[in-house]
């Protein structure tokens, strides 16, 4: 099963590398976020009680997590394309394990997202954002990115099979990602939020991802806060992955 996963993963990576334009486009969006939100909320950093001096510094983890969400939520759409193209059938009539088919897709999506996030980090650092570039903390941050990407790619693949159509899938993808971003401290510190949003953010895995990434990459390192987020995300990724695999296993007309 591991070998199957590895070979299929290799195939997806190879295809991605052959579409460099696509990867480039996915980078443009977060950079635009960074510029727009960075200017829009610039003055917020002057408010008393704001944790960082520059808003960009505060917002970087949010942009990284947005990249993860938008990057991995497309995974299901390409699964539907593969079903239409017959690629999935070709795998299903072979002895390849079904689990591998899902795993390789999700793994590919997560790895791709991690690479994108690294590139954005480098660009942001070049623009003068003060990010910790210590490899160890960077690695910790990427772990969070990885598990969050796994979770959302799993959700996307699971919904793709459950819904069988692209349009509602894209709708659900948007519905999941945007509000959840705002119900987190990606853009606004918790202290500035109304209580009800604070309460929602407590059960929002995206909030934990943002907090954890911020804990290791921006300002003072807070390993306790980080560890809490990591545990939440591992559980979240595990549950969504199990669901996606289950849904795919049941796929039979």
């Amino acid at each position, binding site marked *: 099963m591991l070998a199957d996963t590895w*070979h299929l993963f290799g195939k997806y990576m190879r*295809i991605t590398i052959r*579409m460099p334009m696509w990867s480039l486009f996915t980078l443009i969006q977060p950079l635009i976020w960074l510029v727009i939100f960075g200017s829009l909320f610039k003055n917020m950093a002057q408010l008393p009680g704001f944790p960082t001096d520059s808003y960009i510094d505060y917002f970087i983890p949010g942009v990284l997590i947005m990249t993860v969400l938008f990057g991995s939520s497309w995974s299901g759409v390409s699964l539907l394309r593969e079903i239409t193209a017959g*690629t999935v059938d070709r795998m299903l*009539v072979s002895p390849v394990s079904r689990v591998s088919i899902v795993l390789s897709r999700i793994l590919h999506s997560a790895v791709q997202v991690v690479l994108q996030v690294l590139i954005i980090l480098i660009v942001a650092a070049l623009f003068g954002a003060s990010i910790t570039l210590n490899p160890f903390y960077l690695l910790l941050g990427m772990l969070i990115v990885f598990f969050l990407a796994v979770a959302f790619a799993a959700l996307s693949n699971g919904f793709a099979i459950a819904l069988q159509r692209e349009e509602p899938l894209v709708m659900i993808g948007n519905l999941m990602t945007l509000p959840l971003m705002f119900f987190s401290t990606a853009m606004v510190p918790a202290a500035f939020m109304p209580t009800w949003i604070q309460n929602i953010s407590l059960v929002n895995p995206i909030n934990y991802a943002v907090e954890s990434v911020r804990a290791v990459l921006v300002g003072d390192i807070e390993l306790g806060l980080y560890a809490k987020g990591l545990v939440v995300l591992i559980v979240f990724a595990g549950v969504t992955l199990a669901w996606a695999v289950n849904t795919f296993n049941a796929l039979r007309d």
Partner: protein
Amino acid sequence: MIRVKGLTKVFASGTKALDGLDLEVESGEIMALLGPNGAGKTTAIRVLSTLSGFDAGEVISAGYNVDSDGEKVRQSIGVVAQQTGVDYLLTGRENMMLQGRMYRMTTNDIKARIDELASYFDLNEALDRLVSTYSGGMRRKLDIATALIHRPQLVFLDEPTLGLDIKSRKMLWAYIEKLNKELGLTILLTTHYLEEADNLSHRVSIICAGKIRVVGTPEELKSGVKGDSVILEFENSEPATQAAANALGEQDFIKEKVWEGNKLRLYVENGSASVARIAQAAADNGVVIKSLSLSQPSLDDVYLIHTGTSFESNEEEGADEWWKQWAGKGGGGGKWSKQWDQQEDDAGGDASLTDGSSGEAEANEGSNEGSKEKPSVAQSTDGAAEQPWPQQSEWKQGDDAGSGQWGQGEWGKGDWSKDGSGGDNRKDGK
């Protein structure tokens, strides 16, 4: 190799895709599943290759039960689907390499096998190009080569030459035949090209509405058709002509008559001898014949007889239903529908039957992918006056939901079985 008994599959939508299908394929033969769109060909292949589940029946594929030994079935079969599933952004070699991996072959084995298959299919030069640069015929060859990487003994080809030009099609036929002759592969292919089944297969199964209608070698099937056929096209398509033409078809030397659009096909014992008699009879009946041609039995005739009226009606029964009724009620559908409305009461049988059929022909035109056969069958057979169109009635009873309603409704079979010679009747009426 394959043994299927009573295979039934109902989709979640309620459509009965397969309805008690029986099929046996011997080791080493090429079997063609021939049938119209929506007959259940692809569904049958999907069940046999473990892609689809089913509701009832027993399915042995490549010698293993698809239910209990799915893994062994998958290991022993090669599948070339309509949607091929090769990755366009990989090269031919990479596609085959990956396929070999999926069958857990060793790297050396895969490499040797790729060389072997590439020379076999003349793909050597294209092997390291991206598949997106391949022509349709080349891609098809790669599909088949890829599906053979693990040396399966049983291969499914679902519409292998669909959408290819004549040259590529003939080339592919040569390869398929070679695979069977030289490597002894058992091949089950589906097609709706008659000549493909005729040229390529050892035996043909004609499938319609999820059932196998007839099985045999192309020769057997052809010899089962009653003699030669004479095709008549008429000067005008007025009802009078139609009625007279029908009367023409009732003569005793004519074994069967089938309407194909506005052409009338008459099956006779001896074609050349009948031409003069038909021309004479036409003159007697006052029908002007525009053209007359004679043809030897072909698989075409077999196909038409066995898939006849139900051509595609099983595809979207529900959707067609309103249309049939509408057309039948003279809503402006069929070519002759107005006239049939008037005659519905007095003429009875044949009129309304033909009416329904012609309406249906129209209704089906949209989905009728380039096939020329029109479904208006009115068979008058073998002097069984009580049941002049046995196939029609069988179809109506056998079909579920949609057409059933139609069949038993205003033009139930009682209508036309009580007066077999509808044509004569109408002629008298004129």
